């Protein structure tokens, strides 16, 4: 670990690192030239497979295996580069694109050569305005220098990269949401199968890869699969860009071997918790992954270890530190608001569930909480997501995990909060309880009470008849 040599970020501090001249002067495009002129595409796939490079976009799927899923008899292949990076607290793709765009372009050339894709769409979130400009300039430079275009290096391989800008929707980071958005539609994730490798963008076999995943590829080709596997922890190989933000002294993005502990990231690289305080908890890899308690901070941040403390996974390896002055309800309020806002609305459990959880948490925060709300929330959380099998995409799992983890790890604090913060103005009204319990409500009384519900004695609205009011 001590002699770890950063590769993904090695050019970041070099002046004009975004230019072709600097990139080439530091050995850039050597891997692409070597692969295109000396190697067979399948050999590139094999090397990447052997390296056991796992996708850096959140799911951790083995990259070489994904490339291997493309049908053998395909006519045309497309590559989509996922630069939508919208997982809260994550910004490593942005820096990769701003500081070293040619490293990414070289990775795209290699990925496309390996998969025989001749068109690549780089889907970048609109907010990355500077990165977009840098990329457009870099692609033009690369094209002029013959790293892109027709018959690259005389190899007979053609490649065009088009940058496609998003429009402020988190769900377009999900690979099939991205594809729908690229096609000019709303970003509604698709039901899988078929997987994009078989039927993707414009019905062509399509590979979707994250920016950082592709940035690893030139280094793997140059230094070999064994080098890559010499870094990291079992099943989590290679270097990784970690982000750390929130209640730390230094909010930053740093390249480390996979498997650094959350505590080391915070104390050594993030300069420790701010204001001399202690951490109460930390988000391990973007808010979708859940929460580590202070006692769990020695967990290694790799693809395997985060399951033990009950987190969803490594996600984007973006850590947010929460100090001991912050109520956990504030964290829950923030995360539930995010998911309720970003649910695409396609699946009922996700659309309704994220909305319910947000409203409930908002009510608790405002002083209308009941202890049983915590169980109710846990029930919601356990009923939405790919994990219980009720939704199309993983956004719902991401919405569930913060709730599941917070209730499991901070139940005492949440109960205490509810007891200590009671405000009758936000309390649940008897009529709401009656409706929730499926008791019959007298609609006429309800209509009369419109606007004055809080003042009405609850029993006026309830009857015990057996017929349904509807």
């Amino acid at each position, binding site marked *: 670990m001590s002699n770890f040599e950063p590769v993904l970020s090695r050019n970041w501090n070099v002046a004009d690192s975004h230019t072709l001249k600097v990139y080439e002067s530091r050995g850039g495009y050597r891997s692409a030239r070597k692969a295109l002129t000396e190697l067979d595409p399948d050999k590139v796939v094999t090397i990447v497979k052997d390296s056991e490079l796992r996708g850096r976009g959140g799911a951790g799927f083995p990259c070489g295996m994904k490339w291997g899923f493309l049908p053998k008899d395909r006519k045309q292949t497309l590559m989509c580069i996922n630069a939508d990076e919208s997982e809260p607290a994550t910004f490593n793709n942005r820096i990769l694109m701003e500081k070293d765009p040619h490293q990414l372009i070289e990775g795209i050339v290699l990925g496309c050569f390996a998969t025989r894709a001749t068109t690549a769409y780089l889907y970048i979130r609109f907010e*990355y305005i500077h990165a977009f400009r840098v990329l457009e300039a870099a692609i033009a430079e690369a094209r002029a220098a013959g790293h892109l275009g027709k018959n690259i290096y005389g190899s007979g391989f053609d490649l065009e990269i088009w940058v496609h800008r998003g429009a402020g929707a988190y769900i377009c980071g999900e690979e099939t949401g991205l594809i729908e958005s690229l096609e000019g539609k709303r970003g509604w994730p698709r039901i899988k199968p078929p997987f994009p490798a078989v039927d993707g963008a*414009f019905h062509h076999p399509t590979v979707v890869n994250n920016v950082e995943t592709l940035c690893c590829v030139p280094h793997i080709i140059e230094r070999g699969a064994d080098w890559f596997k010499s870094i990291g922890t079992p099943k989590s190989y290679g270097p990784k860009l970690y982000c750390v933000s929130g209640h730390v002294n230094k909010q930053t993005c740093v390249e480390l071997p996979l498997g650094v502990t959350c505590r080391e990231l915070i104390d050594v690289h993030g300069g420790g918790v701010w204001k001399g305080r202690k951490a109460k908890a930390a988000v391990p890899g973007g808010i979708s992954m859940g929460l580590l308690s202070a006692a769990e901070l020695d967990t290694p941040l790799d693809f395997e270890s985060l399951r033990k403390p009950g987190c969803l996974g490594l996600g984007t390896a973006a850590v947010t530190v929460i100090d001991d002055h912050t109520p956990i309800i504030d964290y829950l309020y923030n995360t539930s608001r995010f998911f309720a806002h970003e649910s695409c609305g396609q699946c009922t459990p996700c659309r309704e569930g994220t909305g319910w959880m947000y409203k409930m948490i908002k009510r608790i925060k405002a002083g209308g909480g009941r202890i049983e709300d915590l169980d109710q929330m846990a029930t919601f959380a356990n009923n939405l997501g790919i994990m219980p099998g009720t939704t199309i995409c993983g956004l719902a799992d991401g919405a569930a995990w913060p709730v599941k983890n917070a209730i499991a790890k901070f139940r005492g604090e949440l109960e205490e909060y509810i007891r200590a913060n009671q405000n009758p103005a936000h309390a649940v009204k008897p009529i709401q309880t009656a409706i929730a319990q499926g008791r019959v409500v007298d609609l006429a009384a309800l209509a009369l009470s419109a606007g004055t519900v809080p003042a009405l004695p609850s029993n006026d609205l309830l009857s015990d008849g057996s017929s349904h009011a509807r």
Partner: protein
Amino acid sequence: MSVETSIESKPTLLSESLRERILAYVPRYPSKRAVVLPALHLVQELFRCVPYKAMEEIAQLLDVAPAEVHDTMSFYGFFTQAPTGEKRVWMCRSISCMLRGGDELIDRACSKLGIEPGGASADGSISIVPAECLGICDYAPAALCDDGRIFGPLDDASTDAMLAEIRGGKST
């Protein structure tokens, strides 16, 4: 029905050069519909909103139904039906910014300008839009102007300074 009327009606809103800029995207994609998002971006940039008439004309250019353009347009929080201020400023409310006071700074900026979150100032110079993570959490609490400028880490004073800078010295 609206498809036919739009085929008949003469384009009046999108200038010839804007139409050319939109059509320049067509060769990039196997389908014309894929140009809807780039086209909406060009229109939003120029008009600072996407009027319905523009959607009809985009639809005509790209051989899709106006309803399809509208469907796409309305899905993305980015496009607006009412004009935004000359500069749009997104202020982050997601986790890392929130923990460092982001929500309060949004309130502060809006009350300084006398607007609701999402609204434009009376002189039309600026809009403040609460946003989910902008991917600039190393600047948290952070804001992003639609010309690409990044602001942060913000506090009360630098939020005020940001507003003044973006509005070119206009006092609130």
